[in-house]
């Protein structure tokens, strides 16, 4: 488009780092906190070298104390700082649910609007790295169930940058789920300040026959599946959810009204995962009358993530699973 800022190819991790670099440079109130985010650069090297540019006073290594670290971020946000707290793995947020859910999410409400809690929690998430059951969870649905929180899940480097900067601009607590398998993926990223509005989904591919809703690492798998399906004469529309709370209702419903068929693809445990919410949201809407087939959920297995690589891959949706399920769903069509 004309007037669009120039872009370069960056990795997902580099795009996140660029967003933090911009924020740190723009405003002295921004601080990064987390375990080994300084000289080590973070477990996934996302904050690499930022400590050398901004100093250990603003890129702060914390002790291994997730409840304390997440809570310090709340107190700092209440009193003038804009913290970005990195959980080394989103699994470790299980130690900090108290501060995230009881404090960060509820303080503004409990105090009748007297405060805001402007902070960001960074949540490296998902399986596929052989790290087994305690380092591979997809917990976004928990936080999507909590009023007071906003939850995003980028699938591209550009959105990673845009959503992280938007999260930081937002006066309320935002969790950004970063899939570990995406950190090294590359894509065009706008230079300079670039934000993506929280709560907005993006249609990645137009289609007629069925709607595939996905987020995070599942978006690329859905797109590859859509390509394969096109070869079979099935036209799949692919929606990148991007935001888990709030969900972009309009974009999803409009697509379902058009295609009449819906499949939600997600890595988290199927039961009570985001696919449940999207299915229910459609089933209670006027789009229900446009449905030509049951709503399909392709979610993770009802098990922890196993270590063995074959089992690990079998525990979450893969491209072939998407193609197969979409083919069945489209059944009537071709």
């Amino acid at each position: 488009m004309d007037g669009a800022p120039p872009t370069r190819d960056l990795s997902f991790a580099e795009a996140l780092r660029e967003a933090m670099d911009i924020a740190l440079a723009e405003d002295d109130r921004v601080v990064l906190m987390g375990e080994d985010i300084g000289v080590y650069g973070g477990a996934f090297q996302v904050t690499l070298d930022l400590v050398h540019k901004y100093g250990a006073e603003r890129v702060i290594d914390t002790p291994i104390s997730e409840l304390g670290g997440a809570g310090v971020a709340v107190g700092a946000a209440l009193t003038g700082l804009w913290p970005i707290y990195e959980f080394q793995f989103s699994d470790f947020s299980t130690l900090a649910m108290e501060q995230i859910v009881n404090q960060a999410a509820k303080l503004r409400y409990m105090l009748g609007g007297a405060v805001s809690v402007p902070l960001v929690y960074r949540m490296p998430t998902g399986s596929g790295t052989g790290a087994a059951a305690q380092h591979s969870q997809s917990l976004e649905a928990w936080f999507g169930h909590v009023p007071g929180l906003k939850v995003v899940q980028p699938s591209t480097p550009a959105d990673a940058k845009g959503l992280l900067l938007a999260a930081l601009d937002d006066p309320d607590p935002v969790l950004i789920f970063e899939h570990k398998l995406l950190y090294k993926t590359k894509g065009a990223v706008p230079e300079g300040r670039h934000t993506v509005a929280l709560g907005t989904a993006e249609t990645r591919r137009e289609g007629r026959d069925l709607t595939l809703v996905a987020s995070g690492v599942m978006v690329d798998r859905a797109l590859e599946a859509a390509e394969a399906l096109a070869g079979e004469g099935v036209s799949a529309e692919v929606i990148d959810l991007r935001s888990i709370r709030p969900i972009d209702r309009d974009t999803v419903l409009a697509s379902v009204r058009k295609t009449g068929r819906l499949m939600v693809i997600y890595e988290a445990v199927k039961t009570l995962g985001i696919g449940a919410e999207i299915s229910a949201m459609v089933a209670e809407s006027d789009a229900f009358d446009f449905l030509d087939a049951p709503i399909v959920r392709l979610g993770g297995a009802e098990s922890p993530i196993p270590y063995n690589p074959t089992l690990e891959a079998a525990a979450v949706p893969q491209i072939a699973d998407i193609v197969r399920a979409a083919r069945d769903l489209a059944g009537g069509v071709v």
Partner: protein
Amino acid sequence: MPDTPPEQVPFAIRHYDAQTLTRALRQMFLIRKFEEGAEAAYMRGLIHGTMHLSIGQEASAVGACIGLSAADKITSTHRGHGHCIAKGADVARMFAEFFGKETGYCRGRGGSMHIADVDAGNLGANGIVGGGIPIAVGAGLSAKRLGTGAVTVCFFGDGANNEGAFHEGLNIASVWKLPVVFVCENNKYGMSTSTEKSTAVASIADRAAAYGMPGLSVDGNDFSAVAEAVEDAAARGRTGEGPSLIEAMTYRQRGHSRSDRNRYRTKEEIEAWTARDPLPRMAGMLIDHGVLTEAQVAEIEAEVDAEIAAALDFAQTSPDPDPAAVTRDVYTVV
């Protein structure tokens, strides 16, 4: 007694002017009578939910806050009425909150357990035992980063000292040398559980050594002793020497909450501590040292009675929140 040798003159008498001391006594009366008023209204079914009274603990609340400015912060607890008043809150708006009114500090959303007065520096009571500790440390981080010179007084109970949040919070505050004063109000019980049963160390102040900070145990029913300890610790914090832990030995004369049948403590113990009530001690000290006369004390008490009556009236005649406003103030920006 004008001819008392200086070393026997209590710190408070030496350190504060008559106006400050009078304000302190007045606040202690205000806390006592506020809670008696709240208790009565609660018993008459005018206030719902639950309520934790600090009757008998007024000296630690007022002693800890007397040296603070509005720029200084406190984090409070479920037993936080005294802290809130000591930090300068208006009892009318506090009562209004208990009655669930729109004029309350939390517009009726929070109630007793979330009473706050952010403008005066009270970041709020907390329904989670230990929940305020990491938040106080975060406030300390802001003060240090932004160079405000403010200190944060973090109130918590003896029961809270066995929460992980205590350990993580004190350790972080110490390694980062933050201006936080941790005030543990040790009233011998966490609900029904005595410190002997809950805590593996005789004096909670001794736990300070595990965090490389000074720890001091003082008579929490002695206004002067608490004030002296907190003034010293606050000075330490303001000069960048880091946090301190102060244990104020006190006692709650009432049960833990309404549901408490006092099965876990004896009538004798309650009577013995009631005999050590901090209010007469404070009044007596001011009279003994010629700060106030008996008559002036009686006058203050009468003023406080009038203020409480007016506050109750304000609360009861205030408007209720709009029932349609359930989801307001969940987010700052929707």
